[in-house]
């Protein structure tokens, strides 16, 4: 039976490794009968901004994630209130994020067999 697993990052994609690690781990699930998804909360929502570029500081870029998400089509979710709070206006199309509101989170989290915060 397929397992539904949600990987959640809440820390910034610039200054922490976690949004990148969330993607890397989610992509690693496809060898098994696992349906991974990714949720960005709080500062991690900046990951889906078109203008976020860790490489400007010499940090590991998000471009590897862009390439792999194109291949796998892993669902990406972000929270509307977080996007507003962190002023994310233009989103990177490759992520094609689905936007949830904060009040939907309880039912959303309970749809998964496992929710792994990183």
């Amino acid at each position, binding site marked *: 039976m397929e397992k539904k697993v949600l990987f959640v990052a809440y820390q910034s994609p610039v200054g922490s490794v976690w949004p990148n690690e969330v993607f890397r781990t989610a992509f690693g699930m496809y060898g098994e009968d696992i349906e991974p998804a990714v949720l960005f909360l709080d500062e991690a929502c900046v990951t889906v901004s078109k203008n976020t570029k860790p490489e400007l500081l010499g940090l590991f870029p998000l471009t590897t994630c862009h390439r792999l998400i194109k291949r796998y089509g892993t669902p990406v979710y972000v929270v509307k209130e977080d996007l507003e709070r962190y002023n994310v206006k233009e989103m990177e199309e490759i992520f094609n994020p689905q936007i949830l509101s904060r009040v939907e989170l*309880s039912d959303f989290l309970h749809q998964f067999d496992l929710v792994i915060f990183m």
Partner: protein
Amino acid sequence: MALILVKYGPSHPVAKLKLETAKEEDRVLLIQNGVYWALEDPSKYTKARVYATKGDFVARGYGEEESKVPLLDYPEVVDLIVENEKFIG
């Protein structure tokens, strides 16, 4: 019914979110600095039933009687893990 693990205290946004989004049938286990939540009546911050690890609570300078939630030893923590198939943490 999910087991929700909370490792951080009331000042942490993710701990707060996990407790707020918990459902009545869920079980919350407070571990490490998550035990600071145990100083308050759980009905103030979550709908779920809440437990805390006894060792973590006592090691932070509190008497067992100060906890507003049941305190568990590790064998009881394992029982809680076994009882709950889904996991959020």
